[in-house]
């Protein structure tokens, strides 16, 4: 929101990806330029607004002017911007992403009308990129902790649970079980004490929403957890965060400290008599710990291995006591539902599934980043309208949802509404929200092999079908990618898939074959080509490839020459096609990816 104060306000995104994109250097350049020119401005470090493709992003509010977002800044352009806009009143439309406010600026389009933002509905990400995650005052100013006050100043435990049930909120960790029902089971359990756990062990490769929420708005998770703890009657809670997320750990720890100081956590919260102590547990790098029973074993200091359910955690969880586990996104949704009411939340989304879902859009897509959309929106809308489609003029091939437990869906299924049931029916899953887009340069057999390699190495080893079956499947897929596959292998893959699904205790094994099953179902021709013709149409499986130049298409621009890591490509002169030396070529595909004219052929 544009601020009416007299000072200039500059906000800069400082989440992990902003920093990786160079936000620190941009901030330094801005500060230096401000100082050099004697400009007085308030700098605010905020979380991730989700437009990762445009990082580093800043926004500037000049008194009396609309707020303007700028993206893809470098230290140089940022310094120019400070000088041009703040000193000389040139808003630099060439660097701007968009403006916010009733007034518009010539040459700059309205920010929230941009295709990437227009169809988004931000509930879980409501504060990400707008508030300083390291200042509780910012969260409070954005109506933070109002929901907790409302709960503690007159709602019964049952009323809170009913509100969540009525909202239709389903677990955003992927399984999609009713959050309200889960809380009810835990409230109804008779044993004491009860525990509350937030699963922030976001392990799916290609998923980073939980990280962004914890980095950008940690208090929303803490407030949601405190409400949940009140509802189920838990006095102690844990937030289990992946070790690979150091910044998230730091910000959550800081937020807990601030919340305790302000009296939103700890003893006798808001003089209601309710006390809640929250601990952070850092994971230690085991993917299987995302499974709830394995996660609890890990908190107890044991090897993170799942155990059979029932008993469910609501009956026997941490240290054998009733425990409720929810995902980060479910927790972050809770304060919004309590504040605005179940009816409001249930009005968003589709008839069957309520609310919004957050996806981490990545891979071969123009606008990679975080998107929050109403449930039931089509995959096509997400990928092509919000995501901007596949870059570099390449053809869309598949979208992978749900990480290693999910599947690859082809173009023909893009009009599928995004919700738990539709995706499961298509052989994939909603999962925690990773969405990786693949283009014609992605080999579906290689992708299946890639995911199997992942689950095989992450299998905890408890269930034999998962431990050994994934290894066998991986071996077969490696053979197919290496040109040594047989047609019988396909039946064997199907058979092994069934055994692993049926013979594994937890979600890791039960879903591990999904990437293989969906690629076999939707892209069988690629398997056949690998096996029968020793051909990889995407040009990924190296053993099967030769690279050549299509002379008519090649203008000798030299992009491939620069891209080649082994100097196997030589220029032959101006506007003449290049030559690839096959003896030097390592079949890495860098030239194919670099060529903008499709002049490199892979056979």
């Amino acid at each position, binding site marked *: 929101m544009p601020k009416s104060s007299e000072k200039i306000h500059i906000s800069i995104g400082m989440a992990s990806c902003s920093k990786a994109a160079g936000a620190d250097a941009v901030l330094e350049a801005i500060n230096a330029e401000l100082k050099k020119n004697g400009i007085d401005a308030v700098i605010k470090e905020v979380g991730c607004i989700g437009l990762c493709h445009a990082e580093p992003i800043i926004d500037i509010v000049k008194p009396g002017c609309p707020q303007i977002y700028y993206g893809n800044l470098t230290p140089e352009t940022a310094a120019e911007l400070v000088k041009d806009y703040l000193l000389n009143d040139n808003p630099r439309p060439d660097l701007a992403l968009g403006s916010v406010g009733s007034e518009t600026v010539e040459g700059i389009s309205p920010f929230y009308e941009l295709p990437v933002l227009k169809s988004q509905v931000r509930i879980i990400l409501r504060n990400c990129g707008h508030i300083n995650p390291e200042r509780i005052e910012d969260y409070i100013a954005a109506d933070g902790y109002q929901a907790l006050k409302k709960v503690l100043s007159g709602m019964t435990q049952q009323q809170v649970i009913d509100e969540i049930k009525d909202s239709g909120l389903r677990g955003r960790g992927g399984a999609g079980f009713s959050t309200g029902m889960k809380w009810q089971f835990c409230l109804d359990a008779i044993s004491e004490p009860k525990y509350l756990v937030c699963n922030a062990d976001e392990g799916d490769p290609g*998923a980073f929403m939980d990280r962004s929420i914890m980095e950008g708005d940690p208090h929303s998770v803490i407030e949601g957890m405190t409400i949940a703890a009140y509802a189920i009657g838990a006095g102690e809670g844990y937030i289990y965060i992946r*070790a690979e997320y150091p910044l998230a750990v730091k910000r959550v720890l800081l937020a807990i400290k601030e919340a305790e100081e302000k009296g939103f956590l700890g003893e006798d919260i808001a003089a209601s008599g309710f006390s809640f102590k929250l601990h952070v547990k850092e994971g230690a790098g*085991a993917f299987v710990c995302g499974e709830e029973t394995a996660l609890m074993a890990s908190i107890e*200091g044991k*090897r993170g291995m799942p155990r059979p359910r029932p008993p469910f955690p609501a009956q026997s969880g941490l240290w054998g006591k009733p425990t409720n586990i929810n995902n980060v996104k479910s927790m972050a949704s809770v304060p919004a539902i309590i504040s605005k009411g179940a009816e409001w939340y249930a009005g968003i989304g589709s008839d069957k599934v309520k609310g919004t879902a957050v996806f*981490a859009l990545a891979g071969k897509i123009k606008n990679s980043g975080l998107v929050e959309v109403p449930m039931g929106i089509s995959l096509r809308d997400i990928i092509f309208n919000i995501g901007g489609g596949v870059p570099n003029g390449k053809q869309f091939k598949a979208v992978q949802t749900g990480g290693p437990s999910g599947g690859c869906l082809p173009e023909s299924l893009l009009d599928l509404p995004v919700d738990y049931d539709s995706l499961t029916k298509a052989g994939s899953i909603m999962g925690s929200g990773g969405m990786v887009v693949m283009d014609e340069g992605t080999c579906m057999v290689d992708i299946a092999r890639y995911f199997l390699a*992942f689950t095989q190495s992450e299998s905890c080893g408890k269930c034999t079908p998962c431990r050994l079956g994934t290894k066998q499947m991986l071996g077969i897929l490696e053979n197919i990618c290496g040109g040594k596959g047989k047609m019988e292998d396909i039946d064997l893959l199907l058979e092994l898939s069934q055994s692993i699904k049926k013979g594994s205790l937890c979600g890791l094994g039960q879903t591990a074959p999904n990437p293989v099953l969906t690629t076999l179902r939707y892209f069988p021709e690629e398997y056949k080509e690998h096996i029968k013709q020793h051909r990889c149409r995407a040009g990924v499986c190296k053993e099967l490839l030769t690279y050549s130049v299509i002379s008519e298409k090649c203008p000798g621009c030299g992009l491939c020459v620069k891209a080649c890591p082994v100097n196997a490509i030589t220029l032959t002169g101006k506007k003449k096609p290049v030559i690839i030396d096959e003896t030097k070529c390592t079949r890495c595909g860098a030239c194919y990816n670099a060529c903008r004219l499709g002049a490199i052929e892979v056979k």
Partner: protein
Amino acid sequence: MEVDFKEKTAGILSQFKRDRSSLIPILQQVQQEFGYLPEEAMQQIADFLRISGSTVYSISTFYTQFKLAPSGKKVIRVCRGTACHVRGAAEILRKLEEQLSIKADETTADLEYTLETVACIGACALAPVITINDEVYAKMTPDKIERILKKPDSHS
């Protein structure tokens, strides 16, 4: 050297409750201190928590975060997440292995570099990425690897 381990480990242990659930946080702190888990320290932890040394060992080998041998000064992690994979992480890893003359999960003889792979560091929009110690390097290419690794004493 051994005395040093013992004292420092004792210092870390004094901050924790004598409870099994402290085991993983203790191991994390000890590793942060030494860069890996020395055998003596593991036994000391076992004694402190009144559990067997083999239990501590079983935890240390289950979780990929824990290292049983010293790592190099610079730990390079190559992200192998899906987004990085489809954008060429394999090529980045190959280049690093070639440049450092070691394979993944190995350390150079001069203890300068350790090369590891990581499932996903969650910076998918900037794929492919690597981290060197805790710093993230975005949108890597084999060329950039060469530039980043350039240092005064050339590698053979």
